[in-house]
């Protein structure tokens, strides 16, 4: 697995999975030589987990959204 600066990530995805009655958000980062999968946090409802998954993905890939001058 590549380490931070030496190997740029190619892509990122978040997934929501069930875990003991909770909903967990996992972050999946794709590298040229492999994949890193990290569990970030768990949430009591699927809806909250899905919101968190969206925000975590946007932060991780710095997706361009929102007003530039906001």
């Amino acid at each position, binding site marked *: 697995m590549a380490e*931070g*600066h030496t190997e740029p990530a190619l892509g990122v995805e978040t997934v929501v999975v069930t875990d003991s009655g909770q909903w967990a958000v996992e*972050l999946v980062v794709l590298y040229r030589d492999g994949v890193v999968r*990290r569990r970030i946090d768990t949430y009591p409802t699927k809806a909250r987990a899905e919101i968190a998954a969206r925000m975590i993905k*946007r*932060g*991780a890939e710095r997706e361009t959204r929102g007003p530039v001058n906001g």
Partner: protein
Amino acid sequence: MTAVDLFVSPLGRVEGDLDVRVTIEDGVVTSAWTEAAMFRGFEIILQGKDPQAGLIVCPRICGICGGSHLYKSAYALDVAWKTHMPPNATLVRNICQAAETLQSIPRYFYALFAIDLTNKNYAGFPNYDEAVRRFAPYVGTSYQPGVVLSAKPVEIYAIFGGQWPHSSFMVPGGVMGAPTLSDVTRSIAILEHWKDNWLEKQWLGCSVDRWLENKTWEDVLAWVNENESQYNSDCGFFIRYCMEVGLDKYGGGVGNYLATGTYFEPSLYENPTIDGRNAALIGRAGIYADGKWFDFDQSRVREDVTHSFYEGTGALHPFDGETRPIDPEVGRKQGKYSWAKSPRYDVPGLGHVPLEAGPLARRMAAGGPNAASHQDNDPLFVDIVNKIGPSVMVRQLARMHEAPKYYKWVRSWLDQIDLHESFYTKPIEHAEGRGFGATEAARGALADWIVIEDNKIKNYQVITPTAWNIGPRDGAAAVGPIEKALIGSPIADQEDPVELGHVARSFDSCLVCTVHAYDGKTGRELSKFVINGMV
């Protein structure tokens, strides 16, 4: 060897546009150009207006440090009109200036800076998932309370100033409202709430006093490992994560610093003057350059327009400053590339050099010799810079270090207000005069120079901390502080140069704070893309 030009726009997350063009060779930035990308022209707006127009116009220069703009505008008029300042008024001004900075510290950290710590390029590091858990935008376990609680200090500002931002309650001779006992006690309660629930509980994991015992870099490292609470606090984690991903290794900048200082000892500044200013300051002014400290002297400040979209070349003192914009397309043919002027300071023995403004500059000034008993005397960051050098991490840590320090100052000033005494002395409105007022906005040194003739503003010049930091090359082709800080930065992914964002944002550049800014592109473009202001 591979070389590529990257054009990145915008880098600032607050407002306005900071465009950066860098040249990368073998994965390292070898040259940089920062471009303030929008013309503002506040100085032109103010010419010919009533002398007090600055109290209304200047706070609108910036939406997040409008209180700082008001503070220095008011002091510039106090000096020009030779006012008398009741001690209560000085205390209230101190409290509100500090409250604005206390707001900015967590808001900037979580909403603007820390999001980049969740960048996918760090996924290979052991603490990455913890960084995402804490700092992910809106849903991070630290982001949410940090941003929400950042609003509390400016509630104190609103109690004294009627509103925040864009208040105009500081006027020549004092402040416009006399607080009641209820106002003061409410302010104390709000400040304590912020301290208990964010500063100590979330950020430090210990008492304010325990953190302020740290005097050396070794003290800080020992503090991190002292107990579980501190180790797992946001501050403890931030230090550990920075050292893990290498934010302590780049972004150092010019290594020379300027602080105009702020907050006055009330008994020492009842009659504001330029000459009496340095000695009355609590947060000290000073220059640290080439390893030596110098007193700050406003007469040594110049603004160079050689590479800025203004008529002419060379540098002028702000009292004689000119703001005569030209068409950027014409300017580019003359080698100009930014709407920001280049502020420079004539350091004895070094000449006119670029200086970094901001919290790290304040911390270096605070570590200088000959502090009076009422002044900030803090060796921590001089020790840190001497031992590990300036960097993105050190600049950030300097900013965060001011939260416990300023909390204690505000608490003390609230206790000193004498509700039976005056908060305002009506001034004589002199038809002629010159004034200089300055402060330390959260982002650094901020100052106004006003020339009054025939009861009107003849000349008004504002130099913002962002101008000090993002200013372009000067007549001697010396790069500006952020340009210098970017050079040497490693770039792992040219498609997502998160490192550039770390460096630029560690200066907390607020382009709306730049009086001259515009939007444009210069130079050869081999690739062009946008990294976003807001997530």
